């Protein structure tokens, strides 16, 4: 169906400590994410899919098991190494957009570049950010602040921001959770387009089957386990 395995999880577990008791959130997760796929992690709330996404996106560390990225074991990285990986390989789109208030769309998009290791000139960065905003259809609004934009526009700024570091994989956590159905569809179409035209690997985390329908493949997560999927 798709290309090389980009991410492979082998028996991954995550345990949270709540006082005296250990609460297992993820148990024995084994899955493969191939390059160029549009994958949905589906399941009910509290099922562990957000935790899985956090681990996949290097925001969190697994308690056990193996995480292979491009065939390399990345389960035991330090915080700084994970920060660098997030910056270089991964883009995030959040349910509540998480844009910097009182900051223009363009500056929001440029923000991750502040932390990039490979530095380009400000002019180059600006041109790149503008082209991304153009791609998400907000070229005319790049000087607007989030407060002056609709939810759908804000989410598109967030997508442009996620793309600014030229990531290999994009994680979207309930990207349409705060949007009405019409703008949801627009945003999801945008994901599809990015996946098809740019070959970008995208992981959608959602509880809604309608969103899942846009994906090429899906994993169902329930009670911390992979309970099925469509490959």
């Amino acid at each position, binding site marked *: 169906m798709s290309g090389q395995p980009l991410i492979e999880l082998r028996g991954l577990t995550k345990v949270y400590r709540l006082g005296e008791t250990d609460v297992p959130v993820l148990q024995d997760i084994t899955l493969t994410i191939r390059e160029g796929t549009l994958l949905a992690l589906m399941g009910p709330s509290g099922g562990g899919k957000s935790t899985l996404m956090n681990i996949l996106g290097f925001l969190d560390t697994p308690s056990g098991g193996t995480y292979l990225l491009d065939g390399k074991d990345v389960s035991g990285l330090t915080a*700084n190494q994970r920060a660098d990986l997030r910056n270089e390989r991964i883009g*995030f789109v959040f349910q509540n957009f998480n844009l910097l208030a*009182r900051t223009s769309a363009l500056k929001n998009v440029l923000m*991750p570049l502040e932390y990039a290791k490979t530095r380009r000139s400000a002019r180059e960065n600006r041109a790149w950010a503008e082209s991304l905003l153009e791609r998400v259809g907000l070229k005319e609004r790049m000087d607007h602040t989030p407060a002056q934009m609709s939810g759908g526009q804000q989410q598109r700024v967030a997508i442009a921001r996620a793309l600014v570091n030229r990531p290999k994989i994009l994680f979207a956590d309930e990207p349409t959770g705060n949007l009405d159905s019409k703008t949801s569809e627009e945003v999801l179409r945008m994901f599809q387009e990015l996946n098809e035209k740019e070959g970008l690997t995208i992981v959608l985390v959602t509880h809604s089957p309608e969103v899942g329908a846009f994906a090429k493949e899906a994993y169902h997560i329930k009670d911390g386990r992979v309970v099925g999927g469509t490959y």
Partner: protein
Amino acid sequence: MIFAQILSALISLKRNILRSLLTMLGIVIGVAVVITMMEIGAGASASVRESLANMGTNVLMIWPAATKTAGISSGSGGRMTLSEGDCDAIREECLAVEAVSPSLGRRGIQAIAGNLNWTPMTVYSGSVDYFTVQSWGLPESGRYFTAREVETAACVCVLGQTVRDELFPDTDPVGSDIRLNNVLFRVVGVLPKKGANMMGMDQDDVVIIPWKTMRNRLSRNGASAMGGAGGSSSSSSESSTDDVYPASSASTYPEKDSVQAENYILPVRFDNVDQITCSARTPEQVSDAIEQISAVLRRRHGIAPGQPDDFMIRDMTQMLKTMSGTSQLMTTLLLIVAMLSLVVGGVGIMNIMLVSVTERTREIGLRMAVGARGSRILSQFLTESVLLCLMGGCVGIGFGRLASMVISAVLGWPVKVSLSAILVSAGVAAAIGVIFGFYPAWRASRLNPIDALRHE
């Protein structure tokens, strides 16, 4: 990158402009207080130092050492070891010495002008530099005597204000004549007012004459006539009217009367001076001056190492210590108060930075999610607090300067611009930014991005 970071810190400070300004106010006030206090302190200590110098704390007196003949000690000044050459050598070789003058004081000399008479506390004598040594400043009227008048032992004198008031209550004495022990002197100038000294002695109750005049005309026995005992004994004999109106019958070859004798320059065998008075450049340099003078005099007097000095140097160390200690204490005290207010300002900074970190938890989480390392978050918040403090510091320096200018204008207090105060308070402001900004910044950098992103 540093520039970009400063820029983004400025932007985020601008976002909460009122809060930033209020926070800055703590530092502004702190730094302004430091600047004002230090400038007032510097001004006060400068004026204390000036009055110390006026009081003669930088004055050194060099006396010949005592002799002991057949077990009887002569007391200090018994030997005649100091010479005019010593004076010149000290003037030329001792860098810490500001001015040097041979000097000799005598008490109990009666001054007579017209029908008024007065016995000044002391008649001092010295060279032209004597006025510098004793920091008399400029004469109130007339002039001080000249080097030529000193060389020629001219009968000229300068009056202190008390003497002037007693002898010339209504007129300007300059150009008038007075008699000191029946020797006629021309008044060339009047000293400025000095008031009483630390011991309560009236420093204006003096007459100053050239030292050669004192040695050759006022002291019959030359060098040994100094000191209280010599002065009083000679005064009792010399002011006796028997000398002026001799009772004995006239002889064919009239003897010189005492007036003629006083006016007659006695042949002097030795180039001795009784005492040398000199002043160090500053009260702090007194000990340097003593060292240098000792070295010069020991060399000139041919004293082998290990042998005792044939001279004594006296200074006012104790008084100096007390006085400069007091002003130092004041300055330190003021500085501590000012530093405390800076610390209070720093606590304000910490408080606001903590609030800011809490408020911006989501932003921190987002920045971490897009790949900011903890250290970058730390430096971002540190930059903000340091910038806040530095800007507050700059404004504070301005306000402090303004305040001290107002104080000096309104209250007339002496104020001295102190560059070190400005540099120190700028440094302290930056340090406070780092110290009090560190904990909030560190807390921000240790946030877990997942929790931070979920923070409401």
